[in-house]
């Protein structure tokens, strides 16, 4: 073995662990999937000591390693770069830094056998950057990282070439596009550092009527950076509390900030392209989850190819820190070919789970065909297959599936999930058919771009089209995702439509389903018609009607 490196993100939120062995990412998972606490923990200085213990232990167990086998633990924050409260505005900044300095000892306690001297600190934005350039696997590229904050900055512009990284610009705090977007999220009554995607969705309902003041407040400098001045939010639209009805004014505010964000990103990309001479861009950081902005960069920016790391938020720094140190140790990381890096259970284990839960189920000869048939009958199916996804998107492993042809399936899914009705759901499509249905950058296997739906298809996939005529698609390539691809092909064979609605398998405010228990709990608590878990199918009717008059439960496996 050349190198085994465990990456850890624990500083702000989305705590996560990732394991890289001999340059191969063998496991990566967010702590929330184990602890069932959304985002793992709140992004407060007080919580900095909390580590992704469960995720880290699982990564090691999955690889058959112990903590003593690790050549390094890469922690995605470097306390040597940290600044004080005067720089960040957080009165508890020193506490955060103190906890990080102690992290090696915390880690040694959480992972018995680990030598604390093996813990290396990797700058937060370098970890983000490494996750992107290693994942993309391009020989060289421009690198753009934007998020709320790292140690002292909120941005990194760099150049990856000849196996190295040169940081060309880093915007220092307090200027932060990510924090500004978080403030807006909070002002609109959503949860900051969590619900920014809701703001992005709301922006589609508004007009950028407040773009002029936003241009005054958010500027771009000539050295690859930007400025963000304090925004008088209340003067632009009244503050909303959680659950308040939003008005067109609020949508206009969201649209205006979104539009200015996109303008600034385009300018930063222009500077970066000129400075590096590159035609490829890799991106990470929470802002890179803004698929509307990503699409505008792809459409109007100077780069010919863009790759975004699927766990672009802070969880991704666990991966990037690990790949960065792996490269330092002489084991160059290999290209990322899948986001399915989490837990899975084999058929026998799944059967044991179902028997243990006392639910009737049957084994399908071909679960893909069975599910396609149910979807074509307009049933909603929970789909739990293979390894869980790394990152915030459901990519056909922990998904809730529906027929896209019926417009009211959007409302139905939002009701099942208990979430706002303005939220869109996304389509998955066979890669070979994607260009026929959607415009925009293809392939798009990680749902990080939006795509205009081509004329003639809007009504055919009505449930999957957002109010602005776009959809955040996932393209499915049979070699990479054979089961999902077969399900899509079977659905097309029955309906003539190569698209299925895919949204994350969870209900509002909860982490995505990960293990079979989570799947059964979600299935039992929401009006989902079927649960397809491995080769097994559980139907809602039998789930609740199986109890006979005698009170005996039907536990048999029906072939």
């Amino acid at each position, binding site marked *: 073995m050349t190198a085994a490196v465990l990456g850890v993100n624990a500083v702000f939120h989305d705590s996560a662990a990732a394991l890289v062995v001999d340059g191969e990412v063998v496991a990566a998972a967010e702590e929330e999937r184990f602890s069932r606490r959304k985002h793992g923990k709140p992004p407060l200085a007080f919580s900095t000591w909390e580590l992704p213990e469960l995720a880290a232990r699982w990564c090691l167990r999955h690889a058959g390693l112990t903590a003593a086998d690790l050549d390094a633990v890469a922690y995605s924050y470097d306390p040597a770069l940290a600044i004080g409260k005067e720089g960040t505005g957080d009165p508890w900044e020193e506490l955060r830094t103190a906890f990080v300095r102690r992290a090696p000892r915390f880690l040694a306690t959480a992972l018995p056998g680990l030598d604390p001297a093996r813990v290396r600190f990797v700058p937060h934005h370098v970890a983000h950057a490494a996750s992107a350039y290693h994942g993309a696997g391009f020989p060289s590229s421009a690198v753009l990282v934007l998020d709320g904050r790292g140690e002292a900055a909120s941005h990194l512009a760099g150049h990856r070439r000849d196996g190295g990284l040169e*940081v060309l610009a880093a915007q220092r705090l307090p200027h932060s596009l990510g924090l500004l977007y978080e403030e807006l999220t909070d002002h609109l009554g959503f949860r900051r550092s969590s619900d920014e995607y809701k703001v992005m969705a709301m922006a589609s309902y508004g007009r950028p009527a407040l773009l002029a003041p936003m241009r005054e407040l958010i500027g771009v400098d000539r050295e690859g950076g930007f400025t963000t001045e304090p925004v008088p939010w209340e003067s632009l639209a009244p503050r909303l509390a959680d659950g308040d009805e939003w008005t067109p004014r609020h949508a206009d505010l969201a649209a205006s900030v979104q539009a200015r964000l996109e303008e600034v990103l385009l300018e930063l990309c222009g500077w970066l392209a000129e400075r590096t001479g590159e035609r490829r861009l890799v991106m990470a950081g929470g802002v890179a989850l803004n698929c509307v902005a990503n699409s505008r960069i792809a459409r109007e920016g100077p780069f010919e190819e863009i790759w975004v790391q699927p766990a672009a938020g802070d969880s991704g720094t666990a991966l990037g820190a690990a790949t960065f140190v792996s490269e330092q140790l*002489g084991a160059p990381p290999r290209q990322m070919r899948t986001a399915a890096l989490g837990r899975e259970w084999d058929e026998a284990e799944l059967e044991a789970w179902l028997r243990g839960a006392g639910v009737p189920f049957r084994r399908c000869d071909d679960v893909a065909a069975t599910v396609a048939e149910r979807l074509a009958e307009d049933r909603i199916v929970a789909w739990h297959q293979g390894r869980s996804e790394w990152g915030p998107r459901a990519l056909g492993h922990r998904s809730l599936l529906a027929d896209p042809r019926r417009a009211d399936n959007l409302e139905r899914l939002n009701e099942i999930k208990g979430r706002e009705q303005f939220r869109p759901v996304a389509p998955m499509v066979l890669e070979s058919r994607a260009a026929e249905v959607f415009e925009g950058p293809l392939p798009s296997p990680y749902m990080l771009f939006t795509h205009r739906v081509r004329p003639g298809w809007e009504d055919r996939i009505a449930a999957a089209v957002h109010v602005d005529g776009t959809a955040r698609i996932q393209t499915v390539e049979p070699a990479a995702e054979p089961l999902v691809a077969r399900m899509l092909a079977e659905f097309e064979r029955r309906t003539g439509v190569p698209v299925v609605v895919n949204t994350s398998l969870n209900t509002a405010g909860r982490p995505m389903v990960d293990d079979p228990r989570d799947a059964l709990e979600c299935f039992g608590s929401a009006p989902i018609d079927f649960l397809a878990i491995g080769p097994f199918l559980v139907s809602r009717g039998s789930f609740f009607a199986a109890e006979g008059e005698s009170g005996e439960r039907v536990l048999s496996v029906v072939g």
Partner: protein
Amino acid sequence: MAEDCTALVGRLFDALNGRDPAAIAEICDEGVEFFSRADGAFGRSAPYSGPGGLRDYVADVARSWEEVLMTPCEVERRREVVLVRGRVYVRSHELGIRDVPVAWLWKLREGRFLRGEVFPDPREAEARFAAAPV
């Protein structure tokens, strides 16, 4: 012998990363010469010579970089010539962050480092090493 050499290289890089002139001098020949190739950062093109030169090198590093981490990944030896492939990660407020693959060629005399040179392009070091007598 190869293991001894790897261990010796490990000690050298630990000492360099620790910015410890005494520890560096302990495993270097009195007449050691080191070509850092960091002329731009250090404002110096001459090699660092002898124990005094090593102290100057450590001082120049400390002045220019808040952090320097040199990681030797592979070590090869041909008689008295040692090729080290690895990476350098440097960070400073003024000069920013860089993480690059590099190689070093070291020459030994009686088990101590006599001459060292940094190669920003590892292929150059490999070519020089290939030309070294077997």
